[in-house]
Structure formats: C-alpha cells, structure tokens
C-alpha cells in the first residue's frame, strides 16, 4: 500500500469527522493500527479539529464537571452502567488485597506444614534411633546366645545341676564349668529375685575338709536378662553352692541361706 497516497487522499479527515461508512471506518482503523505514520497523521488532524472546535465554545466548561459528577451517581438511567464500572474498580482494588491475603494464607499454611513436617521428621529420626538400638540389642543378644551355645557345646565344659535346698526348694541353677579355661558360667534363670540389700554369692566347695571358696557375686541380678554369669574358677571344685548374702558378699557362706547346691560328677 502506498501510505503517502493513502494519507493525501483525504480519507483520514473524513474518518475523524465520522463521515465514512461503518465498513470504511473499520478499514481505516485497521490501517491505523498497522502504520504508525497513519496514526500520527490522524492524531494531528484530531488535534487541529480539537483546537478549532474548542475555540467555538462560548466559555470554559470546566466548572460543570462537579454537577456532572453528582449526576453520575444519582442519574437513574446511569445507575446500571455506573454500578458495573464501580464494581470493576472494586474488583481491581480488592484483587490486590485478595492476592496479598491469599499470599499470607499461603505462607501461613506453608510454614505450618513445614513445622509439621519437621516434627514428623524428628519423630521418624527418634524411631530410627530406637530401631537401631533394638537391632543392636538383638544382635548383641544373638551374639550372647551364640556365645552361650558355644560354651555349652565345648567339649571341655561340664554341666553341674544345682538343686534347690531347704530355703528355696523350687530354686534351681546350673554351672557350666570349662576346666580348660577355668571359667564357670552360672545359669541362674531359675533362682528367685534376691530381696533388697541381698546378693547371691557363688561358692566352690572341696570336700574333706569342707572348704568353701568364693567365686564371686551374681552382680546386677535383676538387670541381667539371660541370667547367665561368667565367673573365674581355677579351683579343683567338687561341688558348687549359691547362698544369699548381704550386699558386698561375705567371707564365708551363710549356710542357712544356701539356695542351691550340686556336686561335680566324678570324671
């Protein structure tokens, strides 16, 4: 399109006057949006006509604005169209507030959720530690059990059952004595819990003359789960006995508190 020819045809003046048909007018609007020089030309024509027509006004009409504005809100014909724009202003204004409010709520929810997650994570971590402990314990238990099993299976181990005596006829214990390693394992599972302030003491006995030798105390009896205690026994024991003694143990066994007793079978 020859823009200069288009401009000088005079169609733009008629366009601003509103003297063109609807179709022609739409076409010019389209050209105007595409060619900046056409737009500039139209704006200049408009400016000239604005100036000319303003000059024909009898006076300045600025003072009428206040009475017009009053009618904007009162006019019954204007009510509906006025209401719509006002609503849209509110929407624009409120949308900002709504957006900030949503953002605040979003942040709040986000932080809440974060702290919830943090708590959950901490709980999970605690459970993990617990599990690890349990696993470690179980492994330890298994190792102990294996150790015990190894002790029992050892060919050098001799099992001596200790039977309940007068004080505690229901009581029972076993000694697994490894004569090679001079170690005595006391299985005290069937002994009753010692009363407060009392402790079991294990004795090695040799007959003729009857000589008791202390092997040691069953320390932390309550706390020990499997109730298997390992004590050193370098003696040529002929029998084993367990007595209840005051805390710390005794030099000699208190014979009326002899719980269990058993003799070593002759080899």
């Amino acid at each position, binding site marked *: 399109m020859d823009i200069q020819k288009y401009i000088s045809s005079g169609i733009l003046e008629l366009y601003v006057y509103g003297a063109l048909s609807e179709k022609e007018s739409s076409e010019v609007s389209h050209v105007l949006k595409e060619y900046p020089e056409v737009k500039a030309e139209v704006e200049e024509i408009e400016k000239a006509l604005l100036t000319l027509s303003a000059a024909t006004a009898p006076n*300045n009409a600025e003072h009428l604005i206040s009475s017009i504005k009053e009618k904007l809100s009162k006019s019954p014909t204007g009510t509906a169209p*006025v209401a719509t724009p006002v609503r849209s202003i509110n929407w624009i204004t409120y949308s900002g507030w709504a957006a900030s409010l949503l953002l605040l709520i979003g942040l709040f929810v986000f932080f809440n959720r974060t702290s919830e997650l943090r708590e959950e994570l901490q709980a999970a971590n605690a459970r993990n530690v617990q599990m690890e402990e349990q696993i470690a314990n179980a492994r330890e238990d298994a190792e102990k059990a294996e150790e015990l099993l190894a002790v029992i299976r050892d060919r050098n181990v001799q099992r001596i059952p200790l039977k309940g005596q007068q004080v505690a006829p229901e009581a029972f214990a076993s000694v697994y004595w490894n004569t090679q390693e001079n170690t005595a394992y006391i299985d005290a599972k069937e002994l009753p819990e010692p009363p407060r302030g009392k402790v079991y003491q294990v004795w090695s006995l040799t007959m003729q003359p009857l000589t008791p030798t202390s092997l040691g105390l069953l320390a932390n009896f309550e706390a020990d789960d499997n109730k298997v205690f390992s004590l050193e026994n370098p003696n040529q024991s002929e029998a084993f006995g367990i007595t209840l003694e005051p805390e710390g143990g005794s030099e000699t066994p208190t014979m009326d508190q002899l719980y269990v007793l058993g003799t070593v079978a002759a080899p």
Partner: protein
Amino acid sequence: MPLFIFLHGSLSYFYPASHYIFMQQDALILELQKGNERAFERIYHLYSESTYGIIFTIIRDEKVAEEVLQDVFLKIWDKAPSYNSDKGRFFTWILNIARNASIDKIRSKDFKNDQQNLKTDNFVDILEAKTNFSEAVDSIGLKKYIDALKPVCKKLIDYLFFKGYTQKETSEELDIPLGTVKTRNRVCIDKLRAMVIK
C-alpha cells in the same frame, strides 16, 4: 495485571493533558470503560471544551448548550463500555454523541429558538463574534486564519465536521462534485493544521 493497569491509570493522572491525548489515550479510555471516575475527569478535561464548541455551534444558546454538554458527558460515562477502537476514533465517537444530542435538542418541542437563521450561520460567525478565548487557543492567530480560509473551506469544515454531514449531503449542499469533497477538504484541513500545529 489488573493491579498494574490500576497503578498505571493513577500515575498517568498526573501527566499533562497534551501527554494524555496522544501518549496515554488507550490506557485512559480503558480506565474510563472500567468506570474510573478520575479517568472520566481527565476525559472531560480533554474533550469538554471541543464538545461544548460543537454543541454550541449547532444550538447557539449558551444555557441550553451547557445542559446538552452535561447530558453528553453523562452519555459518555454510561456508554463508554460500548466504545470500540476498531470502529473509529474516541474523538469521533464523542463527536457523534454531541452532534446527535444537539440535533435532538433543537428538534425537540421544548426548544424555542428565536434565531431562525441557523442555516446560514456557521462556526466562523461564532469565532468572529467571540471576545473571550481560552488560553488553550491562539485566538488571534486562529481568527485571522479562519478569515483567510476560502469560503468553500469554511463551508466544508462546517458541514463535515461541525454538522456531521455525509460526503453526499455536503456535495449536494455545496453543489460540488462528490468525488472532490474528500480531496478539497484535505487541502482545507492541511491549512488549518499549518496554523494550529507549529
């Protein structure tokens, strides 16, 4: 995005009027269509004097023209959402509302016009009779130039611009060929522009 437009509109309120007409017009009209009263005030400031001039040129009664001017701007407010830039200029849209309202007024029963010489009067008579020009118009220069305009130019501008005649009506009224209305008017407006825009 809506927030941006809102701010944009508020800021542009502080720009000078000339800036508005050519730089911010699209945004201003958009705000008006949304029902922004400030935008309406700016539109009024930009177009009221010209509109008043158009109305007064047709009606020739200051008081009645003031009434019509108010009605026209109430219509602009109410009908703004129906304005579509694809169909034409915003100024043209206002021009049509002003002309129609003015013509409706002089045809109405309650309008008693003592001046029966409307047909022969045009904007030039108003300019010549005028003593109080607003600052916006280089009144002396404009008056001189209008005086110097060819009679045919005065009539072309009067019919086509102020009265809103079609090309055909204008050609018949002036007794000039239809095909020349467009080009002759172009020459007239070029001369007007040369004076108005330095």
